[in-house]
């Protein structure tokens, strides 16, 4: 190995294609979808569904082949494998789509966060059963429902219950979930599914928490509210109530040991989805930030203001200095994200690096976009242009998948080698 920052050619080519999608199916609709909250980004969905569903179909075909060949890929083949660029591709995809529009990006018709969990914890059979809908037919969406009114940062406090009905061999879910991204799309459009965290034993704390797959159309599952938000208004964020919602026995995610609570892998495995989701949230922040920086530089250039890289400090204007700081902050966040992503591809444990990237990107995007609004004066604060929207969109990245504070706490615990109790 050697230190290397070269992005594979293939990824750069895909990126160009994605940019085209962003320019034609996202940007032109950004303002409209922001003003008309909860309207669907039809053009975007139609443009990407064929591509995404084909990719998902390929992935499922691979799983099928593996299942047929005995469930595992031969070890020899695995070690020969080149280091994957799966997450690196994803990072650049998410970055570019968010450059297009971060709210619309979240409406990506795919398994999304739910997919991560299924990938991480599901059995091959579950993968085939649950992910097929993302590989064919009409666009469908996946979602993840964790947060509850009294369980935000403290995920262990969830109250939604899953009780097994021996008679019908079904799980019965009761409770309320909030802040479920794409939950409306998953349950009310297409043939989606929501991954629901519920406890099978309230006294067991984290180890009682299991992940259940709730499919669209399940009786007793209702989208009770669509939140009106500060930003990413094209994305739907809903509250879902579960009222004696019955789902098949096998809709609890994972291998038998996980289900029976013999393995702690259930909660931990799903927590590990944060290791991937946090860098991707960071990547989304990067895309918004880049959009803002590019736009600011463009507008300044129209007024004849260029950025004199290299000039000594005392020769810079305050605005030039700010723009450079925006670029440097973006770069810093970018590289921390890239590192955490490269670790995912190299299958190196990355929770510290993932949280570092998330903290930095969340802060950087907040600062960059807020600054962008300021630097563009009366224009920047106006809904004539998208900068103010990017500021509103960007802020979510410092909030979801763990607020900046929660992720900083994770970083602190890891660098200090402290447990949850030692550093509460």
């Amino acid at each position, binding site marked *: 190995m050697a230190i290397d920052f070269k992005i594979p050619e293939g990824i750069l080519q895909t990126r160009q294609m994605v940019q085209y999608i962003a320019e034609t199916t996202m940007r032109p609709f950004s303002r409209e979808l922001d003003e008309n909250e909860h309207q669907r980004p039809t053009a975007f969905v139609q443009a990407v569904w064929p591509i995404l569903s084909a990719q998902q179909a390929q992935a499922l075909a691979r799983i099928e082949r593996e299942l047929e060949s005995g469930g595992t890929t031969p070890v020899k083949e695995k070690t020969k494998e080149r280091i994957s660029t799966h997450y690196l591709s994803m990072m650049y995809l998410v970055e570019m789509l968010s450059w297009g529009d971060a709210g619309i990006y979240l409406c990506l018709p795919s398994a999304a966060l739910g997919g991560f969990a299924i990938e991480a914890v599901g059995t091959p059979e579950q993968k085939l059963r649950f992910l097929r809908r993302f590989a064919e037919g009409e666009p469908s969406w996946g979602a993840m429902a964790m*947060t509850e009114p*009294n*369980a*935000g*940062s*403290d995920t262990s*406090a969830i109250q939604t219950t899953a009780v097994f009905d021996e008679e019908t061999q079904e799980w019965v879910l009761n409770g309320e979930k*909030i*802040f479920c991204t794409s939950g409306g799309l998953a349950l009310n459009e297409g043939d989606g599914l929501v991954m629901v965290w519920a406890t099978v034993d309230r006294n067991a704390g984290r180890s009682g928490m299991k992940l259940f797959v709730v499919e669209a159309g399940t009786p007793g599952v209702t989208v009770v509210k669509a*939140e*009106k*938000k*500060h*930003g990413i208004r094209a994305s739907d964020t809903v509250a879902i109530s579960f009222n004696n919602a019955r789902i098949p026995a096998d809709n609890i995610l994972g291998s038998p040991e996980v289900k029976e609570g013999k393995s702690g892998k259930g909660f931990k495995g799903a927590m590990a989805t944060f290791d991937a989701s946090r860098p991707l949230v960071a990547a989304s922040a990067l895309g918004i930030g880049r959009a803002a920086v590019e736009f600011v530089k463009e*507008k*300044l250039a129209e*007024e004849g203001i260029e950025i004199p890289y290299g000039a000594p400090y005392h020769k810079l204007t305050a605005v030039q200095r700010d723009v450079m700081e925006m670029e440097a902050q973006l770069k810093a966040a970018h590289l921390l994200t890239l590192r955490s992503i490269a670790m995912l591809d190299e299958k190196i444990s990355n929770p510290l690096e993932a949280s570092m990237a998330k903290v930095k990107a969340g802060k950087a995007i*907040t600062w960059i976009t*807020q600054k962008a*609004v*300021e*630097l*563009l*004066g*009366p*224009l*920047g*604060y*106006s*809904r*004539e242009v998208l900068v*103010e929207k990017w*500021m*509103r969109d960007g*802020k*979510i990245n*410092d*909030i*979801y998948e763990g*607020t*900046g*504070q929660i992720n*900083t*706490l994770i970083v602190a615990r890891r660098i200090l080698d402290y447990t949850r109790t030692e550093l*509460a």
Partner: protein
Amino acid sequence: MVSFTPTEDQQLLIETIRRFAENDVRPTAHEHDEASEPNPDALKVGWQMGLIPSALPEELGGFGEMSAVTGVLALEELAFGELATAMHLMTPALFAYPVTLFGTAEQRENLLPMFLEEDFAPATAALLEPGISFDPYSLKTTASPTEQGFVLNGIKAYVPLADSATHILVYARNTETGNQEAFIVSRDQVEIERREMLMGIRALPTYRLKLHDVTVAPDSRLGGAVGINYQLILDRSNVALAALAVGVARAAYEYAKEYAKQRVQFGKPIAQNQAIAFMLAEMAIEVDATRLMVWEAAWKLDQGEDASKDAYLTRQYANKMVLMVTDSGVQTLGGYGFIREYPAERWLRNGRGFPTFDGLAIV
């Protein structure tokens, strides 16, 4: 003698406005922000408090108490209630105060009585101009002296309530002298290009105005031959905006503090985490510091001292402070900070606008 205690009258005023904010403004602030429309009931009650008349000259029926200190105390409380309503209610002052300060005897007599009426006075002012950079010392709107008076040309941005105003005070650069001056223009002389669509202060209708060869008589120039002390208007505007910023920030801070004390996670209120507690402490310190800067600048204005530097630095400081505090407010609320039903995100949207709100308030 150094003192940080408002007079009894000021204290009463503060309490009156606080009640107004709590009873009339806050309960429907979200709804009006969503609808991008003002709250006529609140404005009616607010107007009856007589804030503007109290500053107008006694000989015309006012109370003659144009005090910047009293002004900033009032503005903080109004903005603590809701920024858009605060600006709305005080929009007539953008016209009335400069006329009071610099108007000729005739201008004062003709123009000020409308501010003493029972109904909201339909007057506003236009300073800001569109684009990415606004320089109050080099307005793009021009006033060219002619034999008939002046011809005004230019575009103004974010003009509050222009649509319903009858009188607009337009700031323009005199092409002959290069000075920035103010002109009294009637509503039907200007073209309203559109309502501005802004990130925040959505309940306050503001407009883009076009002045195309607008001819005004010589006596439309505020202050007549003497003109105005433009710098003083900017100073009073800077101080007023900083006071409003303190009000918005205080609202965000107090809400976040209460939320953090109520919101239990991991078995205790989140305020018991140093990370949250320290954020709140910093918010408290910065709100207080800025308020004191506002008070000092206002006090200097009342003393007749040159307050330009103080007013300017205070406004700059307040711009940063209100952003930091309102952003921290959102952050404290976490997911709820991002939901429009909760006020934190509105305060952030409003707070971010302060560097741009030139001329949208006066004291």
